[in-house]
């Protein structure tokens, strides 16, 4: 049975940047998604953040290709998104306060908590602060000999 996971933007941006030092681990995550081992639900803000990060650093045309790829993954149910409504915003705010998280970190943690999903993030600070609320996997868990 597929594991429920929530992907942080750090994993997706890493997967989309050839040469990124954590990309081999990001590809192992994506392979599990494509194999159906991971069922991904994340915040609807994540693709916005991913495309923005890529557009600003690599250019508009690259971000357009990334958006197209993310749309394809959504259409084939590799990734599902949850919208930020009032209830989720309040819960995310509580996490931001309690765990001293950055706002976007808290929104992603809220999505993982709600879906009872494993949070996959390559941001070690976010992982450390979130682990009291959700199960967390980091890049280290996807290093070649870690399974």
């Amino acid at each position, binding site marked *: 049975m597929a594991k429920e996971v929530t992907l942080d933007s*750090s994993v997706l941006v890493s997967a989309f*940047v*050839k040469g990124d030092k954590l990309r081999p681990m990001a590809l192992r995550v994506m*392979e599990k998604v*494509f194999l*159906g081992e991971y069922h991904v639900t994340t915040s609807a803000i994540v693709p916005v953040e991913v495309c*923005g990060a890529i557009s600003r*650093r690599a250019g508009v045309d690259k971000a357009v*290709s990334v958006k197209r790829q993310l749309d394809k993954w959504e259409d084939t149910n590799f990734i599902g998104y949850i919208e930020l409504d009032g209830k989720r915003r309040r819960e995310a705010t509580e996490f931001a306060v309690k765990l001293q998280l950055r706002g976007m970190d808290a929104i992603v943690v809220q999505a993982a908590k709600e879906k009872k999903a494993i949070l996959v993030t390559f*941001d070690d600070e976010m992982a450390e602060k979130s682990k009291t609320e959700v199960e967390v996997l980091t890049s280290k868990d996807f290093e070649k000999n870690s399974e």
Partner: protein
Amino acid sequence: MTEKYRSRVGQKGQVVVVKELREKHGIKEGGIVKQISTDKGVLLVPVSVDALLEELDAVAEDVGRSWPKDVSAVEAVREDREKLWRRK
């Protein structure tokens, strides 16, 4: 092309591909198939995990060429998140 199987189309367009054809063409539960419109109907082509990774690789290759060498993905996301909340 010989007709061997017929299927009834379900409420949302679902069609069961018979076991023999699933096995023959590597169509597995949770797997992905491309739907291609042809003159004779819809052609289902299984998409392998390798093909999906290659597709991702092609996009990443292009992005990687323009991405600043001294910034990691994690640093980029962290920087954006910090800027976002500093602006408020």
